[in-house]
């Protein structure tokens, strides 16, 4: 299993409404992240578009359906299709989430929370190792946002992620907004979470927006449908000061604005990362 070198650029997720921007113009990004499953198809236009984008930018394959937390193990057809896509696109890396999405009978198509137990950790590590073997490369796993924890939890999520990375050799995709959302919902310190991670394993950071909790609905909802809030920018500054330069992107999944708005947000990330680098150098 090879390692993944640092790649300290700034990127955006590829969304349908921005296809023309990426294909016909010059979007000032260092990489583009795509949802793997959208391109794990037999043929047709989606693959051609992705190849055109790949000819202009490095690409990251970001999945939502691997389900590394499934007690039933991984779907071999899924792995084989993802491997074919990775071989075709030659991505910077392949990532997915620390979550489960399916049982043997049904698929929720949502990132469901795992009990943070030793048993679940064993299942996740087995599945991540299987996936990395099938893909022939190490993966990045992303911390999810969550709306409930389980009575049987035995450890904190950052401890779970740390042990997973140490046992499997995988890397981490740190979604700073997700840390913030879960910290709000479960009452832990976002700073303690970040500091508890093996930051030398972080290869990418996601930044996104959420809906804050209200008195009537005391749960913060991770929507990825709006701009990054100030508290998440502050957490990003704190994080990037500790990690050093790391690939950073704005991840917008819904309420997609014109690309210029996302590029403005990305510029803010560039400024924060540059200030952190200067502070480290001083």
């Amino acid at each position, binding site marked *: 299993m090879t390692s993944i070198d640092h790649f300290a650029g700034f990127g955006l997720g590829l969304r349908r409404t921005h296809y023309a921007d990426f294909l016909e113009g010059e979007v000032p990004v260092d990489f583009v992240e795509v949802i793997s*499953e959208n391109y*794990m*198809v*037999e*043929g*047709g*236009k*989606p*693959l*051609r578009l992705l190849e055109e984008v790949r000819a202009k930018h490095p690409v990251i394959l970001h999945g939502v*359906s691997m*389900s590394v937390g*499934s*007690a*039933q193990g991984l*779907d071999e*057809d*899924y792995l084989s299709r993802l491997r074919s896509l990775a071989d075709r696109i030659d991505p910077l890396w392949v990532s997915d989430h620390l979550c*489960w999405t*399916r*049982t043997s*009978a*049904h*698929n*929720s*198509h*949502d990132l*469901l929370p795992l*009990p943070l*137990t030793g*048993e*679940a950790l064993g*299942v996740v590590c087995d599945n991540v190792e299987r996936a990395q073997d099938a893909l022939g490369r190490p993966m990045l796993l992303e911390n999810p946002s*969550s*709306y*409930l924890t*389980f*009575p*049987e939890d035995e450890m904190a999520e950052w401890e779970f992620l740390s042990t997973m990375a140490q046992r499997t050799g995988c890397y981490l995709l740190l979604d700073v907004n997700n840390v913030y959302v879960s910290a709000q*919902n479960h009452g832990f310190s976002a700073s303690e979470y970040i500091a508890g991670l093996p930051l030398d394993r972080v290869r990418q950071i996601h930044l996104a927006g959420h809906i804050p909790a209200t008195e009537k*609905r*005391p*749960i913060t*909802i991770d929507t990825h449908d709006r701009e990054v809030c100030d508290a998440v920018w502050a957490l990003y500054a704190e994080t990037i000061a500790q990690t050093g330069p790391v690939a950073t992107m704005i991840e917008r999944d819904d309420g997609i604005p014109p690309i210029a708005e996302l590029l403005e947000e990305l510029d803010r990330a560039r400024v924060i990362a540059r200030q952190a680098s200067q502070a480290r150098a001083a």
Partner: protein
Amino acid sequence: MTALATRQADFMASLLDDERALPPDWTARHAAGLEIYRNNYRSALVEALRATFERTERLVGDESFARAAAHHLITCPPSGWTLDLAGQGFAETCEELFANDPEVAELAWLEWSMHLAFVARDAEPLGTEQFLEQASAFGEEDWAKLRLAFMPGIAVRDLRHDLKALWSSLAEAAEEGEVTLLAEPATCIVWREGERPVFINVSTAEGRALSEMMSGATYGETCEELLASEGEQAVELAGSMLRRWLHEGLVERLDQ
């Protein structure tokens, strides 16, 4: 079953069924969290159906479509890894729910078939000239034994309504669907031309012949069937349908 498998099976069952009792050790806080996952699950799938069945939604209206989508998710919860297949069986759901408006199921079938054709395996169709070249030395027996491999993503179904008119009339939001009965039933063929899914209507006799050959029947067997059903018109039809399939780019190769 392991503790994790049991927890996941219970969680999934609770996600799919609003009425299911929650585990005894769960609090109101857990229930509130679960409700967010339920909403996420439903809204993601309904949005996926909306994106795939855009015209069907325009035809029946937002509210009816939302009810049909919710019914479909209850009766056919997704099992595959791709959200793109969430619409599998939705045409059959429409057939059941809109039994008095059969054009709804026909349109849903068309949208689903075009959705599948859009991402079907890439292949080059066999042109008429290439076919004639390959068949130039055919004797009678070769023609009788001829089998064809058709382009990936082809779908075939009999229709009673003019889907061409309906499709065009629903191209824009806020347009009224133009529902017209065909003078006689026809067969719709869906495939992908380059990167673009397309469809045409042919006679039901030709549609049956195409279905048979797609299932592996020989040209000879198909011609015999045509002769039995169409009488003396069979010979002309056997030639014209083969010319059409080649001209439209439905055939990938000879499969002998």
